[in-house]
């Protein structure tokens, strides 16, 4: 399975690349959004800010919606999950809109939500083999408010928010699996397996 990692032009793509390789995928980093249309599987990494990412993705929105509808596996991580939604309070610009809902400032005494927190997940193939009570690494100031039933996990920090979503083969994780040690790598492996199952 070849995974195309979207390069918004900022930030560290090494960790997610290495994580996906460990999970058994081959990877390519794609900076030219027009070449995304031929991707087998797409990962939106969790680096940068919403406005800049939305701007960069703008020309690809139509194609991405078609790909998602036809079953292309897609994973958004942190900011990459947020851009899958319609819009964000963080900055102007439209998200890709694969999932209905918006992104709002996290209501908590100390923000960013930075560190290892518990993820209460439902029975879902993405979390196969992940022990209950596992902690994952978060680094976020905003959270997603889905307007459809796509939440598969919740986390409490100031407020309870949706920390993982899945709608068919479109997945989003508010935490960083590539920075969450062994349990994070397990999750990436589950995603790659799911993506291969769909090929």
């Amino acid at each position, binding site marked *: 399975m070849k995974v195309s990692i979207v390069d918004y032009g*900022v*930030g*560290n*793509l*090494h*960790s997610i690349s*290495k*994580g996906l390789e460990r999970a058994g995928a081959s990877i390519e980093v794609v900076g030219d959004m027009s070449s995304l249309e031929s991707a087998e599987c797409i990962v939106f990494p969790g*680096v*940068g*800010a919403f406005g*800049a990412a939305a701007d960069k993705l703008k020309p690809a929105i139509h194609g991405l919606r078609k790909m998602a509808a036809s079953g292309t596996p897609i994973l958004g991580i942190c*900011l990459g999950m947020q851009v899958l939604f319609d819009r964000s309070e963080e900055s102007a610009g439209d998200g890709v809109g694969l999932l209905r809902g918006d992104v709002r400032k996290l209501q908590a*005494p*100390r*923000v*960013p*939500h*930075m*560190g*290892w*927190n*518990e993820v*209460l997940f439902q029975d879902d193939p993405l979390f196969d083999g992940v022990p209950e009570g*596992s*902690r994952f*690494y*978060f*680094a*976020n*100031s905003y959270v997603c408010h889905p307007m459809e039933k796509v939440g598969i996990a919740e*986390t*409490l*920090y100031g407020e309870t928010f949706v920390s993982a979503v899945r709608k068919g083969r479109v997945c989003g994780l508010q935490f*960083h699996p*590539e*920075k*969450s*040690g*062994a*349990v*994070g*790598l397990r999750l990436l492996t589950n995603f790659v397996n799911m993506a291969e199952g769909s090929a």
Partner: protein
Amino acid sequence: MTLTKRIIPCLDVKEGAVVKGVCFKDLRQVGDPPTLAVEYQAQGADEIVFLDVNASVAGVRTMHEAVRKTAEQLFVPLTVGGGIRTFEDVRKTLNVGADKTSINTAAVLDPSLISKCADAFGSQCVVLAIDAKRSGDSWEVYTHSGTKPTGLDAVEWAKAAVERGAGEILLTSMDSDGMKKGYDLDLTKAVVRAVRVPVIASGGCGTLDHIVDVLTVGEADAALAASIFHFGQHTVADVKRALEAKGVPVRWGS
């Protein structure tokens, strides 16, 4: 369900090798950065920090090489600081595999660097490092590896930097650093209470109790330590057992 307190081994790196400064002087070499980082990951470190203690032009290249090699094997967050002077330095450091960058002197010289980086890369990538030294009833900010007093009050500077978009404060007590007599709990608490971003306490760790103290009494979100780990005195797991015994939530796993 809450965030756990983070335990962060810090590797002071010089010319591509790890050293531990004692009061910022008398440097002594202790090992290879990627190897040590991966060892600490296996011990359960929640995060790793690399600080470049002599960021010459050649030093920056060797640091980038060490970061790149480390990022290939490290699946917990890596913060890199020391010698980061410009927006371009931040971009390059993230591009070679750092998850966050810590800025110290450059932010004092040009505070707008903080907002520029936060806007482009996100606040979570921008750690403001403060070296603070007690001066009467308050603490003064020093730059240039703790050699230049700035006249800035550490608590006020922390607040100003957060206003500009710093996502985290890495707070080093210069009075405590290298003394192994414990963190400066008053300084830590003063900064924690003044800002609404996470604070990493640094400087002075000599025993497990010191870490417990700074995360409870000192109210820090994370504790950074170096020599307690580098010389095999304790593992990260030892620290977590000590914290758990005091009822402080920690994360287990590697």
